[in-house]
């Protein structure tokens, strides 16, 4: 399947976003997001990848304007979202929507499918006249592959995959330009994951919507993204196109992450002999000095404890935050 080439102009710009929790608390500050910058262009899928504690979900919440950042800015179509008044914020919400992680709790169990979708227009009265609500619901359900007779169903009467489809329909109700997908398929069975991914892909082709795709599952990310941002302990450690990151990973963490992904290889098992990353992600309360990854890094050296590396260019759009990135295009 070929990918719709993203049209150049940026829709969402994140600049030096920082979110610290617990300033003044005894245990210290949690640097959940620490100076993150990136851009999402029209009809593009940008993936945020990382393990627990890397800050990707926090970042998603910042972009959704659910939390205020400690510093930094997020601009939508040029406008700074954290300075918007109530009415303007509501207009922002029409442009940027979210599909949440757990389809079992992202739909209100007491509301029917139709009502859940309709909430979008109840909260934005001028968007769609009431008379058209019913037909639009039927259209949206059709778009996500559900028959319109599901409109009167309650969430508990639907399967996990169907619930997620409803959540996607709801996210599209206001015709957003950007949909933030926070682990949208993690809670689903593998064969259903494939269906939802295919649906998201199709919707991007037909509607031109951009995705900010947050996930820990590299196989999923590989299939659906144009560009990938790898996060570790609140920082971006590598960024580039899917080909750059998956075929020519430069940062040792990215390489370790890719090495850890289980592979179904008929030519034999490598698990027993593969060199795996040791240890666990350090506590976000007190990240290591210098490069945050150095405590687990297989190629860490003295310089790594003194300098916190910033992103350096590896290729055309490919950058990595490492003092000793792997530059040879060596396939994993």
């Amino acid at each position, binding site marked *: 399947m070929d990918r719709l080439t993203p049209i150049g102009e940026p829709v969402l710009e994140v600049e030096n976003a920082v979110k610290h929790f617990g300033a003044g608390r005894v245990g210290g500050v949690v640097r959940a997001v620490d100076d993150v910058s990136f851009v999402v262009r029209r009809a593009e899928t940008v993936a945020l990848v990382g393990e627990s504690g890397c800050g990707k979900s926090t970042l998603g919440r910042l972009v959704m304007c659910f939390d205020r950042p400690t510093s930094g800015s997020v601009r939508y179509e040029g406008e700074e979202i954290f300075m918007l008044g109530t009415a303007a914020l509501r207009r922002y919400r029409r442009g940027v929507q979210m599909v949440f*992680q*757990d389809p079992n709790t992202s739909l*209100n169990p007491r*509301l029917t499918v139709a009502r859940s979708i309709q*909430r979008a227009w*109840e909260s*934005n009265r001028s968007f769609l006249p009431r008379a058209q609500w019913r037909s639009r619901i039927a259209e949206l359900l059709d778009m996500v592959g559900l028959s319109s007779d599901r409109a009167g169903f309650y969430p508990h009467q639907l399967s996990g995959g169907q619930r997620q489809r409803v959540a996607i329909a709801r996210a599209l109700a206001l015709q957003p330009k950007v949909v933030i997908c926070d682990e949208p398929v993690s809670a689903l069975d593998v064969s259903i994951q494939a269906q939802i991914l295919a649906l998201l892909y199709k919707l991007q082709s037909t509607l031109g919507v951009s995705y900010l795709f947050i996930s820990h599952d590299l196989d999923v990310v590989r299939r659906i993204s144009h560009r990938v941002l790898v996060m570790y302990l609140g920082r971006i450690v590598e960024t580039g196109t899917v080909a750059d990151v998956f075929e020519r990973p430069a940062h040792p963490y990215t390489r370790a992450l890719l090495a850890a992904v289980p592979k179904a290889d008929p030519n034999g098992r490598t698990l027993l002999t593969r060199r795996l990353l040791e240890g666990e992600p350090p506590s976000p309360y007190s990240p290591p000095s210098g490069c945050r990854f150095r405590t687990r890094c297989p190629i860490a050296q003295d310089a790594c404890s003194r300098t916190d590396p910033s992103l350096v260019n590896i290729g055309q759009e490919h950058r990595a935050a490492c003092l000793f990135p792997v530059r040879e295009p060596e396939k994993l």
Partner: protein
Amino acid sequence: MKNYLSMLLVDRPALVSAMFLAAIVVVAFVIAPIIAETAQLQNLRLRMQPPFQWENGWAALLGTDALGRSLLKRMIAASNITLTIAVTSAFLTAFIGTAIGIAGGYRGGFADSIAMRFADVILSFPMLLLALLFLYLLEPAITNIILLLVIGRLPLYMRVARAETLSNRNMLYIDAARGLGASGFSICLNEIAPVVLPTIATLVALDIGFLMLLESALSFLGLGVQSPNVSWGGLVAEGRRWISSSWWLTVFPGLAIFLTALSSNVLSNWLRMATDPAQRWRLEGQGKGRELAERGQG
């Protein structure tokens, strides 16, 4: 509505309770006003008649009191008072308490703290002491009794609504509503209230019985509804004097209180299941297998 009816038909005890309560409601609000005047009729020839003496006429079916008044008629008239007080108090408390609880639970902050401290103050008074103070200072009129019961029970609904709100506030569907641009008020009304409603409805059904008993206790203490109006509790209180000789004067009103409170309890259990879409399968007969399959498999 049709759905609720069929769910009711499945649960026999609930069905019986509902029918009983419906009958009581008809008696209290339709029949009672009609016979209100004749309930006070005294017939000194038929004083202290035991029940089921057919020769005394149908009015004396449940016996008569010291003034020859028909217990049956008095009970019918009293049902109006009793139910008015209980139902009005229950719904009023539920409405006010839930609204405060949800608002406080969702927004938190200063207003929420004030509301909770207010609730604590009320709870720190034993109900009957509160009643004594209240009704001693103001006269024991029906409106004052209702006011007292509402104030006394308010903290319960506030607490329950607030607790449920707190536990649901961080649910993803609340985030989703925020993401769609819903205001705080809209979220409280359209997202949180439907979730809290089943619990509150159950509580209301239970409370109707409880409030009746509470009102009876007040009557027992002489703080309840005053003559010539009388409630079931008042009838029990009056009949106390003759309990060894004219047992029917306490037993029948007491039985009425008991059966009504019991019915409301049973119905509240049914309501718990019927109002929760996820629990309805218990009342539907076919969904059970699927529920189990979903929980046991994987």
